[in-house]
């Protein structure tokens, strides 16, 4: 894992490949960078979605696929012209496949400082059921 003394570097941005379908929004669509880690109780997903707040993020679980969509309102200071750009503003989309051990009902999503934090609780292991045997 990276230590505190490391220098942060700008990482290249990956675009979502759209097959067969075309975007209906003018902005480009990026894959947000994410960290995924697991503890005994939860799996955490932390994704970078700078510019999005809790109102502009959708998290949808369909069957066993969880999809994040973040719609960014691009920054455009009124009366100013863009003179120089090192990054491009755009929307974010990414899907994750959920394993059976995730409790779908308990998923939580929090947005703060441009990070989306998904808490995916692990379901308690299916308890073994004992069948009582009775005499006929």
């Amino acid at each position, binding site marked *: *894992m990276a230590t505190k003394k490391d220098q942060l570097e700008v990482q290249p941005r990956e675009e979502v490949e759209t097959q067969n379908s075309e975007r209906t929004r003018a902005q480009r669509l990026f894959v947000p960078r*994410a960290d995924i880690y697991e503890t005994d109780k939860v799996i955490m997903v932390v994704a970078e979605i700078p510019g999005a707040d809790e109102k502009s993020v959708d998290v949808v679980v369909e069957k066993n696929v969880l999809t994040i969509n973040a719609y960014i309102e691009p920054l455009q200071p009124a009366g100013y012209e863009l003179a120089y750009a090192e990054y491009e503003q755009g929307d974010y989309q990414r899907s994750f496949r959920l394993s059976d051990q995730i409790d779908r009902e308990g998923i939580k999503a929090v947005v703060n400082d441009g990070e989306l934090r998904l808490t995916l609780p692990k379901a308690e292991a299916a308890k073994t059921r004992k069948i009582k045997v009775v005499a006929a």
Partner: protein
Amino acid sequence: MLRRYPRTNLWREMGQLQREMNRLFDSSQQGRLFTSPSYPAINLWTNEDGQVISAEMPGVRMQDIDISLTADALSLSGTRHPDEVARDAHFHRQERSYGTFSRTIQLPFMVDPDKVEANFKNGVLTIWLPRAEADKPKTIAIKPGK
């Protein structure tokens, strides 16, 4: 980086500024290659009254960002801390990096330090840098000859 020339040499400074601006425009149009010399990547907007600098730094906390301003340069520095992960956690994927950053941006004009404003929202830092009144170009009225 822009170099500042003595104030008296206005033409030279203007020529330099023009070349810089042309270079910036060219590089931002070439196949949309967005690169940045160091963290954070910035975007820069200008008009005759000043400029606006924005930087994306998701996951950096407001209290971990330092902004300092000299007469003609702006410095951004800070740290992005990793999650305080429980010891038993193990990573499935680690695409993000953590650590310190420091970057100095040369400004093409003098800034009025009392009017600089910065805000940090949803991981995007925006800094408004109004041009100092004394630094603004003056219109010279032409009087008819007698």
